[in-house]
């Protein structure tokens, strides 16, 4: 290539006379424009906090003439430091997206038909309040459902639901990380951070941290693995970016990670490589564990996982030898299999027995910072029990978050009582829940649906009224404490005025509350709320500091080992790290993780596995014009062997069908996946025409995923669907 280009170059150089002639001809088309806008007096730099994912990275917005021109990373944040990912950078396009919701709208056609009437805020509030009141009068306040996802202003939405009298708040954790959080809490009484920056040996399975979401953990892992030469062992049925960067990659048979972990524990205990002092001082139930894992030999695990026994033995030895600085990474989205809680529990136990608790390079309990609270007028607690019957069905789960898939089953059956109104904030159940046909049925049986969002999500597309929320760069939000190894406080402040007729969520909540007779509970401004929170921050002149810097972190190095005193009481039943859990036993679950082989797909089927890529991750980013450039359509990864058998060609469309639905996708025939599973990315195939870049392009995994959940946490199990693939 180089030579060819050089020849061209020499040719052009020697053809100068011709070039001159061309120049003369084209002078008429000359366009003058000034590049590099002047950095005149109207440029402002305003620190704020990113909202494109839940990681709260600090950004500095460069504003010119009232427009956000650029978002730079704010190095004062000890977690995000000097990085902003692709999504963080692309947040500008969330504000200036032509598809954005620009004013409140009321549906005039059938649900999902896309016929809307722009209305005033008063009309939208009056309409929603009337509908909500009708449901309350007819069925009681518990007949309303309030769905939301993590966000700084989520608190106002939840409080509206509670003050309205509904116990039925349902949040995102059981579609994401409920199982991993519950597993670590059940073992250590808390969910720790992972000191990836200082670890010497990291095992990752059920997580893909170099690819699926870019967070401070990603940076730390790069620092640890690429600069400090930590070893990374990675298990995944797919060859991902993380696999490419790992020292060792094992294409594990899907759903068998628990067998691998139990065999590692078997080897470590059999060879006496566990941290004996730590186990004796801080844990309970080790003897039962030692007895329990005798059955889980590496040879047995090889048959389950297809990872050679000799490698399992070697990895177990290397892991135990790294001891306090070895980490089995917990993972983030843990909505994988029906045994996910027990798989993450086994990780937690493995981490515990090598003694990495509260150690540099190990697992570290999160340090916290105090924050003030705004005291609002309290309301009576909702009287009805939750519709998803969490306390009865999932006694250990976080009741306040609900269990989404169980909730949908109960709503569809109308038992224990009917749900007739659905309010949604910052969430797209049409794409984030499996089995979209079921979600559509749930939508059909509602007397009223109201959605608050920045954009016309698929859920908003099926709503009766849509309330446009201001983008994060247009709002000031409550103050957030980020607990962690390096705790920090972050502040999101308004960078530009809203460019459309939108409102921050608090004002939307207030508009509804006033008309529902609940106005007194929300009688404050965001400024009053924020100032109250500033009050207890351990910072002199907190308000001024946070507005000027956007972030505050305690100086100095993290201190490890604060909980490593023999009299330290862990927040568990026994006060110790619970290897054997009586609490689990009493609730009717396995007190130690018991392996059951996952059901395998029948001959002509594949297991469907899902994943994310960091420039989208969540379903709400694929319509961002700057991110869409990287991937315009999702495809189906299939190994060349089965592809050949089925006559599937790379780039040709295939139908992918499960028991609940069928989609069409382009095939990507690639050796970067095992032959027994197929893979697709999340976030495409939108039904909303106001997601114009991805409307009807590619496919939504929600259409074909079947409903399944983890027994203990209720977390959705997204990797339990078998599909048939055929040329379309």
């Amino acid at each position, binding site marked *: *290539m*180089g*030579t060819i*280009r*050089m020849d*061209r*170059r020499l040719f*052009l*150089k020697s053809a100068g006379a011709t*070039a001159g002639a*061309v*120049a003369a001809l*084209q*002078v008429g088309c*000359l*366009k*003058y*424009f000034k590049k*590099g806008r002047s*950095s005149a007096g109207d440029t402002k730099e305003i620190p704020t906090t990113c909202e494109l994912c839940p990681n709260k990275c600090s950004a500095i917005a460069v504003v010119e003439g009232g427009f956000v*021109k*650029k*978002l*730079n*990373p704010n190095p004062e944040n000890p977690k995000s430091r*000097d*990085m*902003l*990912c*692709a999504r*963080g*950078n*692309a947040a500008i396009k969330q504000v200036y997206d032509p598809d954005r919701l620009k004013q409140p709208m009321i549906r005039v056609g059938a649900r999902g038909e896309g016929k809307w009437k722009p209305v005033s805020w008063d009309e939208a509030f009056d309409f929603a309040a009337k509908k909500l009141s009708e449901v309350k009068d007819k069925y009681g306040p518990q007949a309303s459902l309030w769905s939301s996802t993590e966000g700084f202003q989520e608190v106002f939405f939840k409080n509206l639901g509670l003050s309205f009298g509904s116990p039925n708040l349902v949040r995102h954790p059981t579609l994401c990380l409920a199982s991993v959080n519950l597993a670590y809490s059940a073992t250590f009484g808390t969910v720790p951070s992972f000191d990836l920056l200082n670890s010497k040996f990291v095992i990752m399975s059920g997580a893909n941290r*170099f*690819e699926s979401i*870019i967070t401070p953990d*990603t*940076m730390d892992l*790069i620092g640890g693995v*690429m*600069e400090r030469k930590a070893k990374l062992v990675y298990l995944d049925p797919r*060859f991902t*970016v993380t*696999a*490419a*960067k790992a020292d060792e*990659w094992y*294409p594990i048979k899907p759903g068998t990670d628990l067998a691998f972990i139990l065999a590692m524990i078997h080897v470590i205990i059999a060879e006496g490589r566990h941290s004996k002092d730590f186990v004796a001082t801080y844990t309970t139930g080790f003897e039962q564990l030692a007895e329990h894992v005798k059955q889980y030999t590496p040879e047995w695990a090889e048959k389950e996982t297809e990872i050679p026994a000799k490698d399992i033995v070697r990895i177990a030895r290397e892991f135990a030898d790294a001891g306090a600085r070895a980490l089995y990474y917990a993972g983030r989205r843990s909505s994988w299999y029906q045994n996910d809680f027990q798989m993450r529990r086994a990780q937690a136990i493995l981490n515990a027995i090598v003694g990495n608790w509260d150690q540099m390079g190990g697992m570290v309990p999160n340090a916290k910072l105090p924050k003030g609270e705004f005291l609002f007028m309290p309301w009576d607690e909702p009287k009805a029990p939750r519709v998803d019957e969490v306390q009865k069905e999932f006694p250990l789960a976080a009741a306040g978050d609900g269990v989404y898939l169980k909730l949908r089953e109960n709503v569809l059956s109308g038992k224990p009582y009917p749900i007739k109104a659905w309010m949604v904030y910052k969430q797209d159940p049409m794409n984030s829940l499996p089995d979209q046909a079921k979600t559509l049925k749930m939508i059909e049986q509602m007397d009223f649906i109201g959605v608050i969002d920045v954009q016309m999500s698929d859920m908003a597309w099926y709503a009766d009224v849509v309330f446009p929320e201001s983008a994060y760069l247009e709002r000031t939000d409550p103050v957030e404490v980020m607990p962690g190894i390096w705790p920090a406080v972050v502040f999101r402040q308004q960078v530009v005025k809203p460019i459309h007729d939108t409102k921050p969520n608090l004002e939307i909540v207030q508009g509804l509350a006033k008309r529902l007779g609940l106005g007194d509970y929300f009688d404050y401004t965001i400024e009053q709320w924020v100032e109250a929170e500033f009050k207890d921050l351990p910072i002199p002149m907190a308000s001024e500091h946070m507005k000027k810097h956007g972030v505050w972190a305690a100086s100095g190095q993290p201190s490890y080992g604060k909980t490593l005193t023999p009299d330290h009481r862990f927040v568990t039943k026994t006060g110790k790290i619970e290897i054997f859990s009586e609490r689990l036993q009493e609730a009717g679950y396995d007190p130690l993780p018991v392996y059951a082989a996952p059901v395998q797909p029948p001959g002509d089927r594949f297991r469907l596995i899902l994943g994310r890529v*960091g*420039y989208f991750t969540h379903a709400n980013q694929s319509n961002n*014009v*700057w*991110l869409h*450039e*990287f991937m315009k359509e999702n495809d189906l990864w299939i*190994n060349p062997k089965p592809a050949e058998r089925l006559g599937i060609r790379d780039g040709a469309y295939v139908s992918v069908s499960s028991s609940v639905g069928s989609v069409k996708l382009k095939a990507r025939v690639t*050796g*970067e996946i*095992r*032959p027994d599973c197929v893979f697709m990315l999340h976030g495409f195939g939108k039904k909303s025409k106001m997601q114009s870049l991805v409307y009807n392009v590619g496919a939504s995994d929600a259409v074909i995923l079947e409903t399944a959940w983890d027994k203990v946490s209720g977390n959705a199990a997204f990797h339990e669907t078998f599909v048939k693939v055929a040329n379309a």
Partner: protein
Amino acid sequence: MAMKKKRYALVIDSRKCINCKACVVACKAENNVPIGNFRNRINEERKGEYPKLSINFEPEQCHHCADPSCVRVCPTGASWQRKDGIVLVNYDECIGCRYCMVACPYDARYFNEAEGVVDKCTLCRHRVDKGDIPACVETCPSKVRVFGDLEDTTSRVHELLSTRRYRVKEPQTGNGPQLYYLL
């Protein structure tokens, strides 16, 4: 006081690149790059058959060459080079003939349809001239690129090139590329 001579360069540690595209979007925002055009990119090289596989990622943009062919072929002098090595396009003089795009061994230039001129990476000169670093360098989660002045013997780029092995792309062109890839 005489200004000390400068020579800007990028030293790139491709091993740390995870193809997250943060640099590409940061550049897009910082420089108003049109949709469909890019001033930087990440090349992917995928090799092997299941399960023996590898992927290499390699960020690339204008190499701000020592003897840039794009400048040599430009019929109007629109493509030019600053004393510190930054290769630029003077939009007032560009006639859109695109010879420079053909002459570039690195495919680092694009034609801006709306403006009728050729455009490319400026190493964020507007930032660099204020003492900041280019947007792609700053935003990167893994700090793949290191920006600096090769003439400054205390700079990180000077240190890296003095102590580490590296390669440049297409050296046979005689362009003298100034993107240094660590081995």
